[in-house]
């Protein structure tokens, strides 16, 4: 399995992280010492998460979200699965800015993912404001033939947006 790695960039009162590899018992999640206001984490290069990694994540994100506003970007399916399943994986004050929705074409035996973006395609419920998500059960793409079907159980995948 690929080793968990972190790229960090501080930009004023924002810190940008890029996580890659496998989130497991050996993953060293970063410590923030700078005086910042927001934490932005790009998760597109995260490949796997195991149960030990989930434990480390929950231990890390809970206090982080109490101190900073945290934004997740380009969340892959493995992250959204845990967001939906594990209580505490996406605590308060943590926002998903964008996430991938996988599609599959049985005819081509090919996968494709589309990126949904906050406000344009979805919104997390906040207070009395309900959440929403705009997605299609099937899609076609200009560059390749065949019909692509959403490769998740919608009710399960978009649950964190509390869309029935």
């Amino acid at each position, binding site marked *: 399995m690929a080793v968990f790695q972190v790229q960090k960039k501080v930009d004023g009162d924002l810190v940008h992280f890029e996580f890659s590899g496998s989130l497991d*018992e050996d993953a060293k999640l970063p410590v923030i010492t700078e005086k910042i206001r927001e934490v932005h984490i790009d998760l597109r290069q995260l490949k796997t998460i*195991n*149960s*030990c990694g*989930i*434990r480390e994540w*929950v231990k890390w994100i809970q206090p982080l979200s109490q101190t900073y506003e945290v934004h997740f970007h380009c969340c892959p399916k493995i992250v959204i699965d845990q967001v*939906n*399943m*594990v*209580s*505490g994986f996406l605590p308060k004050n943590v926002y998903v800015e964008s996430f991938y929705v996988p599609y*599959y074409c049985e005819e081509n035996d090919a996968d494709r993912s589309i990126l949904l973006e906050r406000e344009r395609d979805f919104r997390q419920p906040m207070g009395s404001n309900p959440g929403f998500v705009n997605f299609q059960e099937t899609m076609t793409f200009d560059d390749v033939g065949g019909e692509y079907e959403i*490769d*998740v*159980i919608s*009710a*399960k995948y978009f*649950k964190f947006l509390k869309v029935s």
Partner: protein
Amino acid sequence: MTEQRVKFPIRFKLILTLTVIPLVTLSLYLALAVDLFKKDKIAYVLDSSVTTTRAIAAQVHSNIGSILSSMQPIFEGFDLNETKFDHISQSLFQKESRFSMIVVFDLSSSTMPKKSAFLQKSVAADAYLTSYRAYVEQILTRINQENLLILPIDNGSNDILVGVKHHVQSAQKHWVFISVVQDTTLFEIFHQSDIYTKYLFGPNGETLMGPKDRDVNLTSIVAQEFGSFKGEYSNEGTKEVRTSKGSEFLASYAKVGVGELTVTSFVERGAALAAVQSLLIKSILFFVALISATVIVSVFASQKMTSALRQLYLATKKISHGDFDIKVLATSKDEVGSLAQGFNKMAVEVSRLMSETAEKARMENELKTAQVVQENLLPPPSSDLGAVHISGFFEPASEIGGDWWHYSEIGDRIFFWIGDATGHGAPAALITSAAKSASAIVECFPDITPAKALFLMNRAIYETSKSRFMMTFFLGAIDKQTGVLTYSNASHDPPYLLRASDEPLKKKDIVLLNEVNNPRLGQQRDVNFLETTINLCEGDSIALYTDGVLDLQNKSGESWGERRFIKSLLGAVSAKGNSTTVVETVKNEAFAFREDAPLNDDFTIFLCRFEGLEKAS
């Protein structure tokens, strides 16, 4: 396997090699050097000998020449008619101190030679002549062939008889002038005792002069070897001769040049090569000393060199008997020293590995025991509980795993439980044991709800692991009388509710049991778990699984995934098999995808089929 005994130690091989090589090379060198020196010495001796012989021959030639020169004027004063010497001849004869007598013989007669005249210095001349009669007769006999004959009288008198033939053609007369001349010098040359034994030989090889103590064998050999010198040999030369008794001599000869006389010199080969012998003996002694020193040095050097090897040998014997507590002393800075160091490291490593192997074997045994124990934590793979038919399959990724599933009847409800502890292996297995124990307590409460049950389970897990290990968990309870399913989820993969249908089921037909979600068991000490309910219809199936099912990988590292799992599940359920068949089908399809790749996580799947309300009895 019997140990091979050391028959020829390396130490002996070393000593042998260090000794044999110089022994052979020095021996060869010695043999070559001695041979070369010997040849050189022989050549030198022969060269010296021939020089000496040549000098002696020249001396003899000079002496005889002098005698002949002195005789000539005397002979010229002999009146052939009167057959007497004139007064000048007499006067010359008297003055010449070397001459003792001159006799003239007439050989004209065919009968006995007749003494015609003589000169004498003493009155005892006749007596003198009589004493030399035999020699004179010799000369007279031979002088006819040889015009000049020299006959040394080697009897201590130092006299030489010189016979000169004179032929007067006109008178048809032959005269022989025989002079008795004393030449001490000449005799001394041959009597002188030095390294060279000198001989004067006559024309027929007869010994005329030689050392006082003459070697008879040598004389005869020489006579044989040099025989007659007439035209057969050059004027001088050298030769190596051997007597019949085996004595070896280095000989040289030189013709005198007068009277067909030849001077020869002999030197014993042994005497000539005495220096070589001395060199040989000294060399051998030195050689022996050198070899002895080499042997001694070899013994000590080989002892030092092989001591580490011997230690290694003894150490390997100890290891072969299971004793790893050894250390070879490695002081030398060469390959043997490095080998000893390497051996020490190896012994430590082997000892460590053996300890680890023993520990591993012990742990494996314990794991096997734990495996047996864990098997007792699991329910029978399938059961018909009247309203509900349950079938399940579990395979741990290692000997023991962190997945746990269970079903039980508590009052009028069928409880079904599934949990997945953090990680897998022994630590996760201990959590499942805690879960099993907690469930046993929960089952004592007939009215307990799934939420309350999870509350108790959470406390049990928390107290067991103190948040180091957690467990996702799903607990459902089907009321046999009402068909209501109450469930509570602690962050577990939400089970699929598959409604009974005559049509093949599709993905959109899946009802997720994820209306409520709670923290994982053991995450915090006290949690108020939420639960919810849903109505079941006859024929509805609930599929429960752990993430090991979705994460199952093949040899290429590809995951089975949710899509394949759902397709397999829906196909199996749509095929209208019972729960056992469905579970078996899904398991087989999953494992077919996996091939013989090892499980990367525990694999658990079980199915609850609601068979309909239980009629109240």
